């Protein structure tokens, strides 16, 4: 049923090709009939609203202009880039302090999104509103990070397990967590109870969903908070010191173990926040985190491994660049750009934008 402006929104379960049908019996008498009532082969992309038009009468409606489309792409690129940046900062912090690239990081994202879904939308959940559910999910994500540090990574470091072995362990963990999500949560994507379908705001050439704007604001606040924590607090200084040189930090009286615990909590919480925001803008899926992992890695490499500020910068750059590039190239090829960027950066400037040169090679 369309509203006063003639817009009707239909939620769909996920990306795919759909057929859009109008029921001619429901038209008001005086409206006449549109040129066609069935649009076959409507392709819906992951995480995006797809607009289809049924023009009534013979007036026709103009295609959106190039400026409008680029503005919309830039907004969604900024949103996507910031979500990825929030996750990448967490991964960067842990890599900086422990030297581990956690291949299960995507699953920490999914964990946050799924926890929020159970608190928010599950029929036997608590029915919390998404804002509350999201905050609780972030806390649970922090707890999961803490649990993994105490239950897995710290004992392994005590055993002096090598870094390469730890990477394989993190792969095993990713495989395990993803499969458990698939069994427990199910294989079909599910939306949150609130904000699933929204009307766009029109600002100049820009059409932006309120949840998209909120996501950009929340991510910006999170990233600024992390930056201030790192730059202005004693804990942040300690984190940076351990990242720089763990032995020197230890010998100047910094409790490295506590710093690592703090970074794991931050990593889990940031990943969960990123997952909830991603789930709000798309829908919650058992392998959503793994799908974003490629983008997170590309951001980490462009920003410099272990550099949280580099991850913030690279997230925004790559998000904007990739989304806007779909104006010229087919959307499906966007992912190939990730690989291109990684290979190019590693060839030209392997330490990344803001990385430290010594750490490489």
């Amino acid at each position, binding site marked *: 049923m369309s509203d006063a402006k003639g817009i009707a929104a239909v939620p769909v379960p996920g990306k795919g090709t759909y057929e859009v049908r109008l029921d001619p019996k429901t038209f008001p008498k005086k409206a006449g009939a549109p040129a066609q009532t069935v649009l076959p082969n409507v392709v819906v992309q992951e995480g995006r609203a797809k607009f289809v038009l049924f023009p009534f009468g013979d007036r026709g409606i103009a295609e959106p202009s190039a400026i409008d489309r680029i503005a919309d792409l830039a907004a969604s690129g900024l949103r996507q880039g910031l979500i990825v940046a929030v996750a990448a900062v967490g991964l960067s912090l842990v890599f900086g302090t422990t030297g581990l690239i956690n291949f299960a990081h995507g699953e920490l994202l999914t964990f946050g999104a799924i926890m929020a879904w159970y608190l928010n939308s599950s029929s036997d959940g608590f029915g919390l509103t998404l804002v509350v559910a999201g905050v609780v999910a972030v806390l649970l994500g922090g707890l999961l990070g803490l649990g993994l540090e105490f239950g897995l990574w710290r004992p392994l470091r005590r055993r002096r397990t090598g870094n390469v072995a730890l990477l394989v362990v993190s792969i095993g963990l990713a*495989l*395990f967590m993803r499969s458990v999500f698939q069994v427990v949560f199910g294989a079909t994507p599910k939306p949150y109870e609130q904000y699933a379908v929204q009307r766009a705001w029109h600002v100049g050439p820009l059409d932006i969903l309120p949840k998209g704007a909120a996501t950009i604001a929340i991510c910006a606040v999170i990233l600024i908070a992390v930056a201030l924590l790192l730059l202005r607090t004693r804990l942040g200084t300690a984190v940076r010191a351990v990242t720089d040189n763990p032995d020197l930090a230890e010998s100047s009286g910094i409790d490295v173990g506590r710093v690592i615990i703090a970074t794991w909590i931050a990593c889990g919480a940031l990943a969960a926040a990123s997952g909830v925001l991603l789930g709000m803008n798309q829908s919650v899926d058992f392998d959503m985190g793994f799908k974003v992992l*490629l983008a997170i890695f590309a951001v980490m490499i462009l920003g410099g491994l272990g550099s949280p500020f580099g991850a913030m910068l690279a997230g925004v750059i790559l998000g904007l660049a990739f989304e806007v590039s779909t104006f010229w190239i087919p959307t499906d090829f966007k*992912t190939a750009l990730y690989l291109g960027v*990684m290979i190019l950066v590693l060839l030209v400037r392997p330490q990344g934008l803001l990385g430290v040169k010594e750490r*490489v*090679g």
Partner: protein
Amino acid sequence: MDLGQAFVDGARAAVSVPAAAFALAAVGLNLQFGYTGILNFGQVGFLLVGAYGTAISIDGGAPLWLGILVGIAAAIALGLLLGIPTLRLRADYLAIVTISAAEILRIGVGTRQLEGLTGGAFGISGFAGSFYDLNPIPPGRYGVGDWSFDHRTLWVMAIGWTCVVLASVLVWLLARSPYGRVLRAIREDEDAARSLGKNAFAVKLQSLVVGGVIGAIGGIVIAIDAQFTNADYWKSAFTFFAYAVLILGGVGSVFGPVIGSMLFWFIYQGLDTILRSSINDGYFGDALTPTDTGPIRVAFVGLALMALMIFRPQGLFGNRAESMVDG
């Protein structure tokens, strides 16, 4: 629950074509990870380009031998593309780039824009007729009771396991040669190897490419067996199964990956039969349905991979000193 059936199913899977292909993938990984210490998390990408290279060229009219050569050439190209930017850097870079490349290749071959070349989401099918025309085995079923295979499957199995033996012998010859000692020296201490005048970068690149080609042959074997290849088959979990196979059998041992693959498939398929029958018998009530057996098995593989890497990194037949636990 039928343990006898689980045993037969497991025993059939242990010698099946997928087991041979996983053995090939793991033999390749063994050369890369076990002997040279390079962390290829995108082995499935090599299998994918092998399978697609062969399928596309035969589908386009090339003879069988040329198709297989194209598959192998594609794997060499992929190895160079991924190795040249990353192998000078720390081990993590290669891991990140290879896992990303494998996933991007998988997404790429499934896209609509490449439908003319790769068949998009539908994949390519029915290209291996010329392989089956060469089958010397007379039609019929061979084996004992349920543990039996038809002449077509047996033909692919024979070729697949022959490739496994040839690849293992190749790795064995490489490992006991002076070249193998260079590989191990790089794994143990790259700087030391470099300071003795060994070109560590070139040797690592060769190891990545040769291991990738062995994996690509595994991909070709799978594609020929199924007469079909599409994007969904080559998920990144494939690579991690290959790691589980390798670590189960023994890192840095010649026949470890082969035994590992047979054992892996025996357990994996046996577990499937046990899970399925106990779910159908209602042991789990409504909590699990038969479709859950897939992810539950994968969860077990993930746990096993972690446990093996932590508690027994040398696997069943490996030598602890060879298994780069302190990497």
